[in-house]
């Protein structure tokens, strides 16, 4: 039995916003299945008293004090943005980049 179905791979691709063709779905489903089958074998060895590993270093409580540290200047932060905007109404626009600008979020029909 396959560890992951073609439909599950298609669902994951959609959640991850990845455009995947029909042929790619076939190929990735097969490849992912091989990987998951291998992981399943590890699961057969692990007994109930062995907790799943989420962190490879045996550390806890790494905390920082509540002290302000310098961040980025706005120009620096926005330099890497695909698009920026001033955000003022037209009459008061200065042309200065103040916001990150993103394309329409909802689809037209939404």
């Amino acid at each position, binding site marked *: 039995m396959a560890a992951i179905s073609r439909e599950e791979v298609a669902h994951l691709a959609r959640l991850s916003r990845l455009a995947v063709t029909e042929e790619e779905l076939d190929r990735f489903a097969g490849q992912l299945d091989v990987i998951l089958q291998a992981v399943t074998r590890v699961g057969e060895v692990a007994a109930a008293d062995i907790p799943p590993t989420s962190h490879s270093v045996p550390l806890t409580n790494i905390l920082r004090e509540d002290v302000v540290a310098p961040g980025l200047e706005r120009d620096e932060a926005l330099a890497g943005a695909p698009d920026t905007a001033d955000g003022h109404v037209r009459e008061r626009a200065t042309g200065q980049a103040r*916001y990150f600008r993103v394309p329409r979020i909802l689809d037209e029909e939404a």
Partner: protein
Amino acid sequence: MSTVALLNFDEVVARYEPVIGLETHVELGTRTKMFCGCPTDFGAEPNTQICPVCLGLPGSLPVANKAAIEATIRIGLALNCRIATWCRFARKNYFYPDMPKNFQISQYDEPLCVDGWLDIEVEGETVRVGIERVHLEEDTGKTLHIGGATGRIHGATESLVDYNRAGIPLVEIVTKPVPGTGALAPIVARIYVTEMRDLVRSLDVSDVRMEQGSLRCDVNTSLNRPGEPWGTRTETKNVNSLRSVERAVRAEMIRQANMLDAGERIIQETRHFHEDSGDTTSGRSKEEATDYRYFPEPDLVPLEPDTAWVDQLRANLPEPPRVHRRRLQEAWGLADKEMQAVLNAGAVQVIEATVAAGATPEGARKWWMGELARFANEQGIDLADVGVIPEQVAEVQRLVDDGKLNDKLARVVLEGILDGEGSPAEIMTARGLGVVSDTGALTKAVDEAIAGNPDIAAKIRDGKFEAAGVLIGAIMKATRGQADAKTVRELILARLSSSPPSSI
């Protein structure tokens, strides 16, 4: 869809039983963000409090803020929760530009605090609201939708994002379902959020201001017929004031009852509350079951709050608001019913602050529960937001005590403050208000009143001193309320009696 309400609220609760649940979000008042050292000042210029960590730039790594962890544990302890001895953060994956990383660091199946309760007083009864969990996450950025109607995301052509808020520590407090409150459900919801606000404020971990978004509330509501299983719940968001919490539950109960009566089904969905109309509308037009692909956050190590740390935090918890209120009730000398009225009006803190500013408890209570409560009610706002501060009320009361204002004039001064005319002193000068106790100025008015009411004057001369009230009334009218009643009485009696009784 039935949009016309056919059943009124009384009919709704006669036929259906509500179950409510509340999710409150508290933005912590730490100096820095949850996982980086960026400042958290409210109202800063957009995108000036950001860094590679909260922007999720490659190579950056988050480190948890100790003060935020402690604040969350303190909230959990104040809510009688069990504190986890070991827990992890979780990564919640989603695509929406309010988080630049395409995920939010939150907690999933291992919250920091679980299984507590909060007792609230509802119409003289104690209602215990179970707390399911208290967990810590990071807040999202603010989006500004351009091109649509009134800033809505629907119809917008683009959106602008300010990441100053992204990464500020946010505590989520989720109640267990609250059944069995019937017609009181909307009030229970409001009092719960009020109590939560007071509790968090007493811990000094957030300014919990609903109008600034540091306290936010989502309300879950479902209805079922008596004896039947609980119904499908909806989640109402955008509930931004204490008053709205009550209105939102009420509106949603009425809407659902009318749908159920019409044989329609309730869909599990997010709804938005509209402050202006008091209605809720469906929040998402199409939404598949959300799949956030949670997994343990690999960039943060687990938390392991040890007993000594938790005990120390527990030992330093302040007096709970309920105990504090009981103490105030005693200090103010109020009967249970009077204290309940103060609580219902949301006036405890403002009265306390007014007393702290020098007013007597009676004086402070009189103004907040009278003139100002009426104004708040008319405006549909919370008492704390009327625009008069406790120090000003104390000042007005001081002027009354000093004989510079009488109650009637004090009300005019308060109206002036509500209208934004400035301080009590400025308003008194600008409007020419002030009690006239200068006998020279009053004697003329007294003589005129005696001349105008010879029969009354005769009675007083005969020793019927109680008749003086008629003359005082006439003089108060003639001086537009500005005369000092005590001085007027003395003048009348001095004029009409050779030996006025000293006791009057």
